[in-house]
């Protein structure tokens, strides 16, 4: 089986935007998200918001995968796929 992007050690730290950028995000329980550095605002669904709040607390990818599998009743492979897609969108939005 091919190694997925987050399984490569050098990519683990690049998957999400920098912690500093994540911690600056203003999150509202309505799902409204504002980036005070680039001025962009966007919306996240409840799972996206949960991921952002967890990332802001300092969770790394492994911790995030464990939490998502436990909390949302999904298998590891589905969680990995969804988190990778989410991280890609986040990188674009915070660029």
């Amino acid at each position: 089986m091919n190694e997925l992007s987050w399984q490569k050690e050098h990519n683990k730290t690049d998957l999400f935007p920098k912690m500093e950028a994540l911690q600056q995000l203003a999150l509202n329980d309505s799902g409204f998200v504002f980036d005070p550095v680039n001025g962009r605002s966007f919306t996240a669904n409840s799972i996206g918001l949960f991921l952002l709040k967890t990332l802001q607390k300092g969770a790394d990818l492994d911790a995030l995968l464990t939490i998502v599998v436990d909390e949302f009743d999904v298998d590891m492979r589905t969680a990995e796929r969804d988190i990778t897609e989410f991280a890609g969108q986040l990188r674009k939005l915070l660029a």
Partner: protein
Amino acid sequence: MSDSPMIVAVTGMNCQPENPGPGLAVVRSLRQEFGASIRIIGLSYDVLDAGLYLNEFCDAAYLLPYPSAGEQPLLQRLEQIQQQEGMTILIPCLDAELLNFIRLKDQLLAVGVHMVLPTREQLLQRNKDRLDVLAAKADIRYPESKNISHNDFFYHCHDEGWRYPMVVKGLFYDAKVVYTPDEGAAAFRSIAAEWGLPVLVQRYAKGHEVNLVALGDGQGEMIGAVMMRKKAVTDKGKAWAAITIHDPHLEETARKLIKELRWSGPLEVEILKEESGQYLLIEINPRFPAWVYLATEAGVNLPAALVRMMQGEELTLAEPETGKMMIRYAQETVIDLKTFESMMMSGMHVPL
């Protein structure tokens, strides 16, 4: 100076929706800070400049001769207004008038009118036709630009390695993105007719604009920076909607420019953030921008800070709040014929 009554004159009261002057935002900020304890004199150039008639912001309003008339007619007119109003501070808000005010600084000071202005050399250093030199000195990226004085350029520019689209800019105002030689030539004609020669052409870069407004203390320090991202623009590229941000890279760029220029007074730094994340210096405007009231609402009243600075007060400015958003709108003001007649015939409107 601190014992003098606070009577402040502000220029740039034009309010065209697509390209409003900064004057109204400046007087609105001053009124918000000082209330009835300030007398505000609105100054402008055209009888239809709506800001002249907004009595909630201007206690009196006067017309000035157009900057193209030169500094002597301007001096005479300001001396007349000074005799009538006794203003102690004047805040020029338009690029095209600044050279005249710089030349008149000492003469106006002699009659009691104080201004905080850059020197002539500082002003010229940030002119669009010299900005590449300043950008290189401050180690800031700047899009390739060229001064042109004939529209032939647009039909032969490919020989010099230029490709469409490109941006055509006036020396003081106006910028148009053009996609063909004919569009380029038309933009050249219209900009040259309004703002004179040279006209600038600039490489087109994709991205979004982030701007910063601040004061320079004349010693190289930046005071009270507020940053915003444009969310929507008018046909002339002016902010129609904007949101305050805190972009450390933009802040550092502005700090370097102010240090290099040893800038004195208000200024606006315009930067294009490219899709690649890189920053390009677009312009430095030597005055408050029309969006300065957004900075006031974000907690940093820079026009009031300028007035306090001129009165010798110590400034204590708050950190601006990010996420404050402005959405500009157009509104009518209704005046009676007598008011219009007074402005037409004597160039003044002094409500009782």
